[in-house]
């Protein structure tokens, strides 16, 4: 379980997050919805301890990680897999090397176990035959699946997705969303999805928090979003798009 408690964050004079509290239960999919540039990705980085808030606390499985040292955070971070918006694949490594990289780096696993897990993720992501290709030779959807495979290879409890369908064509988007849904049903994984696409929220999320002007203006089950009377939520529901 991940909890953000009264988080405030400033970059210089700009207040990014104001007293934000969010809870993500295990084995559920939580979406964080909001326009571009309001600090949604920042919330994911706070959950991983990649950045520190100015005030408030972040708990992962009940452990306060807010003031933890970087070296202590590494074990906490391995409970979560992160899929970056631009995938953040290592462009000089093949797909297999990308998938196995962190297993080789951080876990003292025997080579045959690393190879077994890599093969498992290649199959899961439907990338058989592409093992020795570089990321640049794959389509956007395939790269996203490699990034998801890399996040899954540690067998985390929770996966964090930063704009998982941004920049993808409709078919690839649908495949990625169905992959995310299957993670919970088949692997008992929880997920946090940061997105500005409201259709993605209704497709996969159990609950949604709406971030607007640095504040959470809605945090409830996805189906209850329609009941909200907040003008911003009414406007996005009517326009179905969040390019603000």
């Amino acid at each position, binding site marked *: 379980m991940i909890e953000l408690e009264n988080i405030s964050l400033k970059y210089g004079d700009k207040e990014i997050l104001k007293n934000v509290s969010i809870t993500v239960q295990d084995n559920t999919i939580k979406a964080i919805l909001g326009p571009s540039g309001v600090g949604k990705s920042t919330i994911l980085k706070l959950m991983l301890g990649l950045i520190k808030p100015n005030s408030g606390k972040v708990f992962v499985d009940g452990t306060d990680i807010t003031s933890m040292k970087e070296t202590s955070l*590494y074990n906490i*971070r391995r409970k979560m897999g*992160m899929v*970056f918006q631009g995938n953040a694949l290592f462009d000089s490594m093949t797909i297999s090397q990308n998938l196995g990289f962190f297993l080789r780096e951080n876990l003292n696993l025997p080579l045959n176990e690393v190879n077994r897990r890599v093969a498992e993720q290649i199959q899961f992501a439907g990338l058989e035959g592409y093992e020795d290709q570089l990321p640049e030779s794959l389509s956007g959807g395939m790269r996203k699946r490699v990034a998801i495979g890399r996040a899954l290879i540690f067998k985390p409890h929770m996966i964090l997705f930063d704009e998982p369908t941004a920049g993808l064509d409709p078919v690839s988007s649908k495949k990625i969303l169905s992959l995310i849904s299957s993670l919970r049903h088949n692997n008992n994984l929880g997920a946090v999805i940061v997105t500005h696409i409201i259709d993605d929220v209704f497709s996969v999320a159990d609950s949604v928090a709406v971030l607007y002007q640095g504040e959470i203006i809605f945090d409830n089950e996805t189906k209850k979003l329609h009941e909200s009377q907040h003008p911003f939520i009414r406007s996005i529901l009517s326009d179905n798009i969040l390019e603000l």
Partner: protein
Amino acid sequence: MQDFFLFSVRAFATIPKIKRYWRDFLDQTTICGTDSIPIVLVSAISIGSLLAIEVGNLLEDFGAKTMLGRSTSISVIRELGPLLMGLMLSARFGSRNGAELGAMQISEQIDALRAFGTDPIAKLVMPRLVAALIMFLPLIALSDFAGLQSAAYMAEHYHRLDPGIFWNSVYPRLAPKDFVVGFLKAPVFAIIITLVSSFNGFSARGGTAGVGRSTIKGIVVSSGLVLIANFYVSKIVLENM
């Protein structure tokens, strides 16, 4: 400044993990060591040859051409050899560090390392630092050798000076402090070039233009610091030996 200091401390503090990042270290020894040999040779040969020609012309006016070996060897070993090598490596090794790490920063690859539990400074900076600390020394030795050989060649073929006379004025007169000054600059330059360029790479923001800006900043700052350090290392050693 404070961030750079902490970054540097962390880079040194992770040196005990070198065994874990042995392969990265070996890659970096090739990049900053063997791959840098051509540029070091070119700069050393050009500086040795030019010094021999210019200093030889000057000494000839005073009838002191036999001192050519002494004059050029001190310049090559103590000052211009290490300095030019430092500037060349700042441009070659420093720019590579800045651009590579900057590109990794803006494409979130460095965040990915942290997110998946790998210390990016231990993985990316420390192997570069250790490789530079080790490889800059033989590069300076090579630079000294090539610089002196080219000076001797020019002394013989341009100034018609007997090689025996040239080398006789080199060896007996070179003092240990001449080598200390020159070789002490290797680790100092290695630390400056690696940490400044890597820090600027890690600080890259704002897309590909940001990578360009951080790379240029890394080269300019490290080159400036190499010039300043060159002066102070010489001053401190020569005043105390």
